[in-house]
């Protein structure tokens, strides 16, 4: 579903990713493990088209989409929950969730259907819906960011360090939500980044390890 083939990315003249190859199959659950600064966020931003590739290709559904502008990713069914949530603070939770499908111009009935599906999967979001995003706790914000990614992520969601900074109880809830997601929507591929490899082991089928901008597959 999503693939990086020999991708090199530079930020301000420094190679942050070096010939990185990574494959997320349709419906697959994949972890990308690495220390801070190893290149996890850069990998996801590259998949999202937010950074240009110096070499290599980005494939979406088998097609070469290296030069597809970032804002066309949601149209291809790819949702993204960036590090630090990055919600729009002055909007309510409902407005945050709806924005990507409104931008896509989906019919109102389809927007409502997707919102319901997200509320079913993440029931706490239904309660938070009328609240301002700026007033949420970190953990609540992560749930909203996951929900927002799912609104358009009909084929894949990219989750950047969703467990970082979550209290153990919240981390457990988040992990349960991911399991529910996989059972309810098995066709949606999930790519999660994390620094602690143990945490994701029960949730994923495949793990990639990234170190100093290079990836070695590790089962």
């Amino acid at each position: 579903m999503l693939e990086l083939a020999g991708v090199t990315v530079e930020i301000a003249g420094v190679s942050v990713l070096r010939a990185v190859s990574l494959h997320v199959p349709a419906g697959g659950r994949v972890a990308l493990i690495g220390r801070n600064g190893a290149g996890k966020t850069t990998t996801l931003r590259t998949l999202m088209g937010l950074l240009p590739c110096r070499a290599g290709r980005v494939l979406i559904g088998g097609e070469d989409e290296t030069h597809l502008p970032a804002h066309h990713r949601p149209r291809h069914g790819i949702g993204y929950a960036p590090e630090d949530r990055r919600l729009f603070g002055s909007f309510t939770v409902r407005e945050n969730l709806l924005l990507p499908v409104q931008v896509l111009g989906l019919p109102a009935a389809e927007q409502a259907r997707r919102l319901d599906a997200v509320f079913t999967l993440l029931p706490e979001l239904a309660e938070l819906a009328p609240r301002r995003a700026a007033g949420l706790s970190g953990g609540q914000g992560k749930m909203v960011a996951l929900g927002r990614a799912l609104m358009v992520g009909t084929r894949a969601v990219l989750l950047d360090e969703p467990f970082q900074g979550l209290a153990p109880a919240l981390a457990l809830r988040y992990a349960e939500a991911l399991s529910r997601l996989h059972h309810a929507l098995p066709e949606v591929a999930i790519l999660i980044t994390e620094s602690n490899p143990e945490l994701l082991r029960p949730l994923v089928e495949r793990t990639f390890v990234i170190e100093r901008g290079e990836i070695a597959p590790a089962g």
Partner: protein
Amino acid sequence: MAEWLGQNTLLLGLALLDGLAYAALVFMVAVGLNLVFGVLRIINIAHGSLFAIGGYAAASLGLFLAAHGLPGWIQYVALVLAAALVGGILGPVIERLVLRRIYGHEQVLQLLVTFALFMILEDVQKLVWGVQPVTNDAPLRLLGTVDVPFGEDVIPFTAYQLFVLPGVALATLGGLAWFLRRTLTGRIIVAVTTDREAATAMGIDARRVFLLTFTFGAGLAALGGALASPTTTLVPGIGASTIVLSFAVVATAGLGQIEGAAISSLLIGIGRSAAVYLAPEFEVVVPYLIMVAVLLVRPQGLFGVVETRRV
């Protein structure tokens, strides 16, 4: 003090009315500047040129229509039409040809480029309208004056400055707040202002939003100039004084604050005209004294929020 007030009620009243009308004009320019900065992250020095060109275009169009014997109400249509033309033509041209090349570059470069643009537009304006004063006060005269009771005195004040200018500014404030909160396009603009990359990842084409916002901001500046044209004589340099004043308003309010821009426009507009009547030698410095006083206490501006980590 009471004696002084007794002698100067009339002056105070005039300063208040004048300040209100002036604040309305400054607001129109400052709010556009603010919107453009919020989305494009560029401080557009040439924003003042759009104000000036909007004013000249409106005056010329008004004079042209009057010379052809068209009815008076056409004058008001001409104000809006001239602003829409200036914003609608110059906005996209500037955004596409100039600004698009400097997004994300260092601020020094951006300032230099928009300053260059300002100088070019200032010369274009002299080329088209010359250096002789241009004036068309028909829209002002047509509405006549109103007697405003003030204490025991009555102040005759033009209805245009009393009602039209503050009315348009209020409508702009309310309309903009409604647009940004209630419409999808407005929410898209707010999303790009808040976090451009996150907005892009949500499917928003930031470049289109840049073009739209800049054109809209240019239109607001031009409308400010068009509305100002009946109340003043247009001369070269009018753009420069406007932009500097609206920078003071934006800095006082805090960047990204629309309601705040309205309040600091009032503060600076009334402060400035109070100086004009009561201590004319301080007219030029009063807006900046107000700005400095506010920034000393609140460096982020009256309504600004301390910016949290953006990247």
